């Protein structure tokens, strides 16, 4: 073993007297230096594209022609009077509302089952894995699985037929009257585990003495649920609900890979409508207008989310 001693070469005076004005200026700039990577990324990846899309939405013949012209609100008028857009708006509203409510109800029910004292640790672990499985698949896999399951000669129809519930194969995704409900169901299936996990964590954080106090006061199971569990979970439920509304409104891949917005626009969503405007009709101006409308709608939801977070 050899011991090494660091040579004392650092001049002491440099440590003491840095130029005062330079240090103040540099000191002021340092925080911006640290912030600059993030600020730049936000500007390049978010601000610039958003401003460009908003710009496109007020012009005509954007992107595909070299000299776009200012069109005022013409694109917005065109989009807002397009029956396909209005159908997409209605479908999206149904899709996100039903999905979010079902995610919440299913997530809460499963979370409470997994939080119960009645089941053993191993059983709970097994169920945890089973319940979380849908969340582990990517949307592409989910779309393929459910297309096969819901095929007129697929497994779901086979089971229903065997049980005598249907006479012949039901056209779940191909029937305009059923397609929206079928894709909503698939979305519910794929999204509830996230709610379940978050609510389970929140449930485990509720102090036990609250339940004991309620029990001492003579509260039954339902009263404990409504007066202890729900109020304690409220912040999580509201945050998750608003976030889920935003996320679900952006669902594109699942719809595109199962029904493509059809049959007969029955599952047309704002996302698929915008995509078709841009990449099939090359109407980037109306696509931008539709995208801005979606952005505004989403911002309303985001406003409630931020306000709710502040209240906390």
């Amino acid at each position, binding site marked *: 073993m050899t011991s090494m001693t660091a040579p004392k070469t650092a001049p002491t005076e440099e*440590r003491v007297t840095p130029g005062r004005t330079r240090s103040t200026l540099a000191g002021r700039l340092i925080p911006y230096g640290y912030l600059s990577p993030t600020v730049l990324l936000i500007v390049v990846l978010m601000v610039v594209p958003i401003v460009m899309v908003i710009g496109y939405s007020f012009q005509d013949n954007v992107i*595909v022609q070299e000299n776009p012209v200012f069109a005022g609100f013409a694109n917005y008028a065109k989009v807002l009077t397009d029956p396909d857009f209005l159908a997409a708006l209605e479908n999206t509203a149904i899709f996100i509302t039903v999905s979010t409510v079902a995610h919440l109800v299913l997530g809460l029910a499963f979370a409470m089952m997994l939080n119960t004292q009645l089941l053993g640790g191993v059983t709970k672990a097994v169920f945890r894995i089973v319940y979380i499985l849908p969340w582990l698949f990517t949307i592409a896999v989910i779309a393929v699985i459910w297309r096969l399951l819901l095929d007129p000669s697929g497994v779901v129809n086979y089971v229903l037929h065997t049980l005598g519930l249907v006479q012949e194969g039901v056209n779940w995704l191909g029937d305009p009257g059923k397609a929206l409900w079928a894709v909503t169901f698939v979305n519910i299936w794929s999204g509830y585990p996230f709610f379940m996990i978050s609510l389970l964590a929140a449930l485990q954080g509720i102090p036990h003495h609250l339940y004991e106090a309620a029990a001492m006061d003579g509260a039954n199971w339902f009263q404990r649920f409504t007066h202890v569990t729900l109020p304690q979970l409220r912040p999580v439920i509201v945050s998750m609900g608003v976030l889920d509304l935003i996320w679900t409104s952006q669902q594109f891949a699942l719809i595109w890979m199962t029904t493509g917005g059809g049959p007969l626009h029955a599952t047309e969503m704002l996302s698929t409508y915008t995509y078709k405007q841009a990449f099939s009709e090359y109407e980037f101006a109306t696509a931008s207008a539709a995208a801005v409308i979606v952005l505004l709608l989403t911002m309303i939801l985001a406003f409630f989310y931020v306000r709710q977070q502040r209240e906390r």
Partner: protein
Amino acid sequence: MVVDGIRVRRVIGAATAAATVALVAACGSGSSGDTASDGSVTLEFAQWWGAELPAGEFDKIVNDFTAQNPNIKIKLLSAPYASTKQQLITGAASKTLPDVVGLDGAWVNDFAKQGAITDLSKLMSDANYDTGQLASQVQIKGKTYMIPVVNFVYPLFVNKDLLTKAGVAKVPTTRTQFLDAAKKISATGSDVKGWALPLDTAVPNGIQNDVMSWLWASGGSMLTDGKPNLTGAPVKSVVEFVKSLNDAGVIAPGSLTMKEQDKVEKFTNGQVGMMIDSLAHINLIKKNKPDLKFEVAALPAEDGYTGKRGIPYASWGIGISSSTEHKAEAFKFVSYLLSKETNANLSTIANGFPGNKNAQPDFSDSDPLFKTAFDIYQQGYPANEFVGLPKSEDLMRSFDEQLQLVLTGKTSVDDALAKSQESWTSVFG
């Protein structure tokens, strides 16, 4: 120590900021067609072909070219069809297309209008290229923008076992015979249907391959003088024929959201007796169901039709970006892919038909069905009127939606065709 710490942090802060600026600058300065210091040129070639060929085969063909032309390097950007399409649409919009691009006939009109792909006629005359050897060229206003390199035809696929089981002795050659055969096949079992019709609107090419193909097989056209003519007798008879198949209950259920791959799967599983499909799927079907007995035939025509039968096709087309600085080198590569030997070789491994008239694909190692299909192809003519039309996918989609209304009984054939005619006319302008 404290000051040292501050200095280190200051340096890190500045370095991070500088690195971010450099990164952002690098993102913005990406350009294709670079010339290296040794004078060699690198061409980017975006296509979906490499993804559809056996692994490594396309690289071999490209490597042969670079061996012959050491001053040209080819960078292959291979991705599946759908992502290539999306990438090229955005590339065309932002004028950042790779130097050489694989094209589908459906995109050509729009890309040419945007000025994203260059006029190949000029490059061909500059290079004294003999255009007589090309099987076809896709032109807009008399200028060539795309050359089909390999063509894939869409004949009728027939499940022989199902046909025999249904008591149909002969593969149908007329629409009446087809309806009759489809009815008989559908009668053989509750899960079996005569025909599959994929009408999914996400990728509405079922209109081209499975609907309009009936029109072209009888020598019909959906255009008159380059303008849509959907209300005329030929298109009307096709839609009425498809409706009669639907009314007879011989179309596999779920057709309104069925995709092309579902159609192939149902045929492979014996759930559908007949389908119109790409020849390229023969190997897939044989791999998934080696014992399936099927054959390919020309599409049935209208009763009494004796003329040549159009057979729908899709192409691996090629074009050159207008923004590339190396057009001559790019065209050299294009003409290499279209040269007699290379084109024959490429067609053989792709199981398609060559874009060079003189190229002879080698069927010796292929399935005998390819030879049959080549004979059908040579007896008829390649027909795909959607190639070169503006917003062709949108045209297919609007027709698709009207056809869906007809098949669900929500509108009449005449009204649907009048609506389609109206929307197509507005696109043609």
